[in-house]
């Protein structure tokens, strides 16, 4: 598949936007007119052609600009990328998984040649060519996880598995919905999920952990998560809260369409073969309200979901301040007609 990459920004003048094709393939997360937490995990098997699920790792029109934004975040704050010493094997596993997937899915853009431990990687969109020895850190300009994650959309955390627990012992996180790798690194599955409201009481995390401990190689799973973001900012981190938190107070009935974004994370979970660790990929998709209302089903469904969302969840996701304004704006596009089952456009 040949992609055309857009020139755009996710900060300052915020020139990000979606092409009509990108709108149609947006992974809209609501399959009905309401929302509640669930263990909504499904096999990460190939989806429809052109969809965000077509390939294991999705690369889209925002790729080049997103990678530029990641480099800026890392330059300003190197602690967004951390790996504890025992995670080196898992880092190589991650590099292998991402390189092989990108090269297989997008042969026009990425190419990987392997001759034993001698690997040759070509990334045409970013103009990178690298020969290196798999397993030898000194042959790459960065450690393996950072090297490949600087060339792949989405955040990544790597979980070591021990004592029947998962431990977030490595990661590279620059497009996050208000969580911090620097804070979470070294925590276990229950610890880093501790702030999530309502879900603990429902036993969601016990069930999810039990499931993940038995995750098998070659059989990744996925789920969608969502929140909303004011301005198309990828780096909504706690570290930079002083830069973006105030944006929530800037939403008015006049600017909802351009300012308020639905933010969806396509989360993948992959058992890594050599390390027995689990890779968690968190790919962020943004869509403006003005773009979303071009799809009739979504413009009906989203205001209904937001209206029935429990207050605790709205607070946790940081929507409280502009939820009513957004619902009011969206409601002018909801004609009250019933919506069909499933997430995609009709």
């Amino acid at each position, binding site marked *: 598949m040949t992609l055309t990459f857009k020139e755009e920004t996710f900060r300052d003048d915020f020139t990000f936007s979606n092409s009509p094709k990108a709108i149609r393939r947006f992974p809209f997360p609501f399959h009905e007119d309401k929302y509640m937490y669930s263990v909504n995990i499904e096999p990460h098997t190939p989806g429809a052609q052109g969809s965000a699920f077509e390939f294991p790792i999705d690369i889209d029109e925002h790729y080049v600009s997103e990678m530029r934004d990641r480099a800026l975040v890392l330059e300003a704050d190197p602690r967004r990328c951390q790996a504890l010493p*025992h995670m080196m094997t898992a880092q190589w*596993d991650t590099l292998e998984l991402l390189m092989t997937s990108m090269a297989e899915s997008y042969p026009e853009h990425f190419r990987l040649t392997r001759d034993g431990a001698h690997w040759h990687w070509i990334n045409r969109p970013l103009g990178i060519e690298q020969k290196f020895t798999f397993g030898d850190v000194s042959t790459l300009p960065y450690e393996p996880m950072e090297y490949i994650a600087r060339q792949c959309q989405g955040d990544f955390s790597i979980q*070591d*598995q*021990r*004592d029947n627990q998962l431990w977030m012992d490595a990661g590279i996180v620059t497009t996050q919905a208000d969580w911090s790798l620097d804070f979470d690194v070294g925590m276990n599955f229950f610890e880093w999920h501790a702030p999530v409201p309502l879900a603990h009481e429902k036993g969601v995390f016990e069930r999810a952990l*039990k499931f993940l*401990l*038995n995750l*098998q*190689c*070659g*059989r990744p799973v996925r789920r969608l998560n969502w929140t909303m973001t004011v301005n198309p900012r990828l780096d909504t981190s706690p570290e930079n809260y002083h830069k973006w938190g105030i944006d929530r107070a800037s939403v008015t009935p006049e600017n909802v369409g351009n300012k308020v974004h639905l933010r969806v994370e396509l989360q993948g979970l992959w058992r890594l*073969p*050599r*390390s*027995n660790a689990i890779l968690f990929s968190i790919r962020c998709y943004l869509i403006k309200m003005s773009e979303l209302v071009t799809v009739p089903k979504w413009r009906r469904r989203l205001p209904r979901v937001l209206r029935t969302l429990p207050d605790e969840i709205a607070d946790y996701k940081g929507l409280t301040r502009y939820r009513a304004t957004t619902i009011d704006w969206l409601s002018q596009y909801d004609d009250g007609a019933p919506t069909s089952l499933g997430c995609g456009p009709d």
Partner: protein
Amino acid sequence: MTETFLRRVRVAEIERVASRIKRFRLVDAANDRLPDFSAGSHVTVCMRSPDRLIRNPYSLMGCPSDTSSYQISVLNVDNSRGGSQFMHDQVAVGSELEISSPLNLFPPAKLGRKHILVAGGIGITPFIAMTSDLAAHGCDFELHYGVRSEEEGAYCGLLQTTYGERVKVYYQDKGEFIPLERVLGEQPLGTHMYVCGPKPMIDWALKTAKLEGWPDENLHSEQFSAPLPGKPFEVHLAKSGRTITVSGHQSILEALEQNGVDAPYLCRGGACGQCETAVSSCDGPIQHNDHYLTDAEKAGGKKIMICLSRIEGNSITIDL
């Protein structure tokens, strides 16, 4: 869960490595590269015997970074339910089998300062890959390996040649036994112990470690049990309303599969927890043969691991 995830492999080599143990080297049937695996992993091998499908878990031996082939070792068990006998008598070089993806329920603790490996008999198999992995990472380890006799012990010479002083073999027929109390008593903080072997040995090792004051988090064991035979009984499936008979030599899981019910499973050895099923009612005590449920859960009678456990009564209703 289903057979679409099985990989066809061909037996490339068979070697008798002890009087009752054979080593099998498996290569991909289409000569593809096999998936990488981590030390401590096992695969489930599917054997199509004339009368039924047998699935047994076997630890992957060999060096995890060598994925040109997989190696497993099979002990011909006296009271075999068919699996090990099938491997010994029916499988020859060139035979094709099917295997699952590798699954690791017995990984080395990456943060361990030192590793004490305790093996009994065929329980040596996961430690072949584990010693290779620990040595490759420069980790401090000791292997204490108990065998009945020189004829019955597999890989003793190979391990001693490769790892020298770090490997100690104890021959039961010469009156030698693993001096576990002493071994465990002199280890530095942060040491992990791993034990694999017959159930009495695992129980003994874990109990000894606890008496020596070792924390639970530093103790690891792996045991794949075969389903124990018993009396036949009936299983009622609450969701589908079906009733299926479990014969005396079948597990509940095997009976369900024979009747076309797609029930969840992974290890089929009572270790992984994947086949945990809720019990609605049961007219007799449940024989919990797994290593997964807690004692309280076993006493509660509300859950059963259908790969191993059975009942002493006539019928059980489960949530499937």
